[in-house]
């Protein structure tokens, strides 16, 4: 069953379109990758799906959550959806956590808000979630501040926070870009495990084709605010229909070749 559907989504700033006519849908257990270079409108699309566009930007089109159009819904209605039906994990886990609040309380926040749990119940659930995202010594870790734990651990906390209220859609906005490669692999494995377990639909946003290809089943390619490509991952990778899709696949293949052990290490500077 479709949980989140958007069609004709257009985002404008002072009449200037930043995202044009984007449409896709997400049902339970879907894994959709949204790929594109920086500035292509990926993150704006994600924010629009939560009704959190920066001031001055306007969205038009349709955003259906459980069949109801939320595009022009007042903030009061959006708040009931955010965190409970649709959640998001951001790129930089250090800035996405309040520096002065113990991480356990940050995970507990949405639980108290949406499920009406009291402080101690919410904290117990926060500890459970720390365990589920494989954080070491959860009972102790929930009392730590964000700067006292590692980047990978912070992203695990952010994942726990996003999934705590059992949303049905998880938007992951470049969740591994700020992490180093080994940690990145661990977080991707965890993400894979969690979405299998919870059945949450995933919208994975990234500029990194190999990362997306490893996790997603469907692929959307965005450029200059438009969707230029969409379909099952294998189809898009084997038979890209747009020029940009072909460039993307070719450059990803080149980077992979350069990164292969034994080959001359490339400059890696040329993205496309």
């Amino acid at each position, binding site marked *: 069953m479709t949980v989140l559907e958007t069609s004709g989504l257009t985002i404008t700033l002072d009449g200037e379109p930043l995202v044009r006519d984007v449409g896709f849908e997400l049902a339970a257990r879907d894994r959709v990758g949204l790929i594109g270079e920086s500035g292509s409108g990926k993150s704006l699309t994600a924010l629009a799906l939560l009704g959190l566009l920066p001031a001055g930007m306007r969205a038009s089109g349709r955003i259906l959550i459980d069949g109801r159009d939320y595009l022009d819904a007042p903030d009061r209605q959006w708040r009931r959806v955010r965190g409970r039906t649709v*959640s998001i994990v951001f790129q930089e886990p250090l800035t996405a956590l309040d*520096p002065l609040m113990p991480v356990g309380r940050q995970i507990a926040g949405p639980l108290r808000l949406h499920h009406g749990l009291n402080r101690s119940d919410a904290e117990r659930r926060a500890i459970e979630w720390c365990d589920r995202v494989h954080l070491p010594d959860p009972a102790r870790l929930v009392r730590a501040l964000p700067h006292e734990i590692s980047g990978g651990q912070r992203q695990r906390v952010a994942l726990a926070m996003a999934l705590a209220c059992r949303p049905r859609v998880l938007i992951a906005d470049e969740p591994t870009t700020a992490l180093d490669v080994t940690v990145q692999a661990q977080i991707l494995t965890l993400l894979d495990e969690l979405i299998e377990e919870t059945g949450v639909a995933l919208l994975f946003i990234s500029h990194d084709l190999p990362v997306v290809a490893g996790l997603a089943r469907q692929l959307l390619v965005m450029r200059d605010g438009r969707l230029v490509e969409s379909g099952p991952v294998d189809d898009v990778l084997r038979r890209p229909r747009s020029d940009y899709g072909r460039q993307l696949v070719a450059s990803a293949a080149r980077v992979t070749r350069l990164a292969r052990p034994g080959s001359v290490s490339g400059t890696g500077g040329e993205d496309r």
Partner: protein
Amino acid sequence: MTTPLIEASETVDAIAAPTRPRRGWRSPSLIVGSVLLLVVLALALVSLVWTPYGLDQADPAARLAGPSAQHWAGTDRLGRDQFTQLMLGARTAVWIGVSSVAVAFALGTPLGLLAAAAGRLVDDAVAGVIDIVIAFPTLLLAMLLVTVYGASTTVAISAIGIGVSAEVARLARISASRVFTQDYVLAARTCGTSTPVILIRHVLPNIWHTLLVQATLAFGVAVIAEASLSYLGLGTPPPAPSWGRMLQEAQSTVGVAPWNVLLPGLAVAVAVVGVNLLGDGLREIGDPQLRTRRRATGR
């Protein structure tokens, strides 16, 4: 809203104590500032139960006497004990300082937070009001109020409080706006948190330290404003003692009894310098921004 901060420091102690610089609590400005301020507070507190002489107890034989065993700070032109007046003046200064800072924060903080949290229209309106109040000198405002309502402690507190509240509102607005642009506020919104809850859970704990430093500076401003008003005869009306009025009464006899001018002046200086040093020390310890920066460079 002290809970998260207390918990925070506990957690820091428990987990990262070895790496955290603790020298902040031993900074010279914090120690010197605290000592100076404690002297003033001690004078004010002791004056509640004991003073060397009564306020109106004059010794006509010892007019304008210099400091001695009987009169530690000498006497004024009526032969009244100056140390008694200094102690009672400290009480007035602390009382007016604390009350007007309280008034300033009660007015300024909610206004600043409102401006930061609300939309552009409200923000612009509040910013305009703040600018107007800042542009209007506090002393002038006080004179205006005194002309209308007559000189009294309440009028002095209101005038100083309103004058200082504009600075508080400006700082609260700027600090809160900065917090509102942080990712963790966006993250809180994506979890469905409403703006009032974000203000209480995320914004206040993150600007609390900055406001505390501002409170110490505001206290210094208030002490000077009170002394100035009293000097001009617009502050606390007699017979309540005030450092400002001591200065004013002593100025005609400055050639004969210079200590009568020096000592109240010194008292004002000690209170203001003390509270400013304390504020500097607190800023070093407490500012989450400084802490973050230290952390970033420490890695």
